[in-house]
């Protein structure tokens, strides 16, 4: 398999025109052909500025969603009702931190570092998935998030494993495997509650009632109102429309809800023989836009906690950086004065920098 550099060279005509505009046009033609042929674009390949910025925006939003998404679930780690459930939940929240790490790294391959992206999150210039602006009020919400929210995320993300940008597509392969485990644990958690005591069943039904509609909103606005969709589809960053994915999700959930012994809170939900799909009721888009604007139940709380963790951790990150600098200095010093005692060298440097 060719390296990224070789890939780059192979795509650019060696005897291309010297003229800047013509040169860009030539690069663009190579890029378009690669996308059309379902080849992967790699970090060192030429790409249009708008393609790069669209990807950074999307990957950053995804990364932010992973780390903000830790909060509603972490809310239940200390109250998990059995040690087995506690272990599963902690592992899941840990996976989300790991997903955040891969995704920030994928964004970094496009030239935008984690610090810059976190700053944009903390100052409200970049968003995260609105679903995490809803609260987890009972233990069953942990199950509903796994089943519905992670289920919707998988429906959205599986096509991203074939995204035209290589590092993002590869990160998504690993993320989807883990998300699929998360979805199963959520389903299984709800199943146990649904078949448990009447109070547990009621808890499960209440959670599904609250999470169903926000989960449908996770696919984004209807196709005719989605501002970024058309270009992203052309670039094969996105493979299916919002409405297609939403329909796919509904069709998957209906039989699962039946197996769970729970009902989905939509009186208009029914099988349409003609379409071979389920019809479902109207989504309250006013609520979606309100939550997106910042008026959801937890927007303020989520971002405040994120900023606080970051601000309160500043001295720790500064210490790690200072220590790394001192070590680098000492190594340099030790190389220059190999005959000196290393402890003495360390003390000198420590004092000099204090």
């Amino acid at each position, binding site marked *: 398999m060719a390296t990224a550099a070789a890939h780059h060279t192979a795509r650019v005509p060696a005897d291309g025109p010297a003229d800047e505009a013509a040169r860009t046009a030539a690069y663009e033609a190579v890029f378009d052909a690669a996308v059309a042929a379902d080849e992967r674009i790699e970090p060192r390949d030429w790409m249009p500025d708008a393609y790069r910025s669209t990807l950074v925006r999307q990957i950053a939003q995804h990364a932010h969603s992973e*780390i903000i998404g*830790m*909060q509603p679930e*972490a809310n239940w*780690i*200390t*109250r*998990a*009702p*059995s*040690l*087995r*459930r*506690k*272990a599963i939940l*902690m*592992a899941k*929240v*840990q996976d989300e*931190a*790991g997903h*955040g*790490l891969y995704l*920030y790294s994928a964004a970094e391959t496009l030239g935008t570092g*984690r610090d810059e992206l976190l700053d944009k999150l903390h100052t409200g210039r970049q968003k995260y998935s609105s679903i995490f602006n809803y609260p987890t009020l009972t*233990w069953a919400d942990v199950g509903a998030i796994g089943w519905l929210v992670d289920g919707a995320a998988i429906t959205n993300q599986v096509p991203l494993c074939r995204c035209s940008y290589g590092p993002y597509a590869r990160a998504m392969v690993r993320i989807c495997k883990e998300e699929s485990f998360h979805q199963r644990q959520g389903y299984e958690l709800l199943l*146990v*509650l649904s078949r*448990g*005591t009447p*109070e*547990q069943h009621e808890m499960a039904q209440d959670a599904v009632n609250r999470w169903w509609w926000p989960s449908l909103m996770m696919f984004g606005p209807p196709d005719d109102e989605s501002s970024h969709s058309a270009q992203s589809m052309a670039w094969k960053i996105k493979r299916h429309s919002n409405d297609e994915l939403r329909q796919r999700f509904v069709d998957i959930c209906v039989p699962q809800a039946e197996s769970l012994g729970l009902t989905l809170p939509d009186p208009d939900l029914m099988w349409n023989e003609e379409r071979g799909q389920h019809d479902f009721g109207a989504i309250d888009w006013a609520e979606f836009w309100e939550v997106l604007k910042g008026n959801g139940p937890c927007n303020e709380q989520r971002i405040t*906690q994120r900023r*606080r*963790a*970051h601000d*309160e*951790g*500043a*001295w*720790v*990150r*500064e*210490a*790690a*950086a*200072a*220590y790394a600098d*001192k070590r680098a200095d000492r190594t340099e010093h030790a190389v220059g004065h190999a005959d000196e005692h290393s402890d003495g060298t360390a003390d000198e440097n*420590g004092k000099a920098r*204090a």
Partner: protein
Amino acid sequence: MTPTVNTAAALALGDDALVLSHRLGEWAGHAPVLEEEVALANIALDLLGQARVLLSMAGDEDELAYLREERAFRNLQLVEQPNGDFAHTIARQLYFSTYQRLLYAQLASGDGDFAPLAAKAVKEVAYHQDHAEQWTLRLGDGTDVSHERMRQASEALWRFTGEMFQPIEGVDIDWDGMRAAWLDSVGSILRRATLPLPEGPQSGAWTAGAGRQGLHTEPFGRMLAEMQHLHRSHPGASW
């Protein structure tokens, strides 16, 4: 015939792991950097795994974790101390992981009931100690602010360290050698981190060995209230 497992010993070791795992779990979503979200959760998960094996040697893991009252827990007071700032969490990790590593290393080399668990856990705990050591060095020898915070934390938790060397009945190791080895290891790490070895006593007058006898500190009751409330709200339910 194999003798029955020493239940009190399984509880003492299991409660240490259970309670510290819970405290570390409280960091989720609050860590100073994303890598530490992963690392702290990893340590918490290792400890929870150990706790589940140990508590299961003594009875039903969930009954023991969720239905005992505060006075029936046998963990060290050190592990129940609130997280505090990151320096306090690291100091607690340094003290406890050094203890646990020495303890499990000895248990693993024996042929007692805890040997199979200890053989697996000692590898996990070696990583925990390495993590604590690296952060003790970074904080102690980082900035003036971090040095001061780490110094305060290492001193604040010092008085909970003496309890670790009270022999646990049914845990046959060299307890005297244990204290010396612990002091040696912790002392060397603190020195390299440019931190003084705390000077105060390693235990208070009335609290010596208290956690192992079911006497805990005030924050522990609140921790248990949070941990047990849901389970206790649904008597007999399965989860």
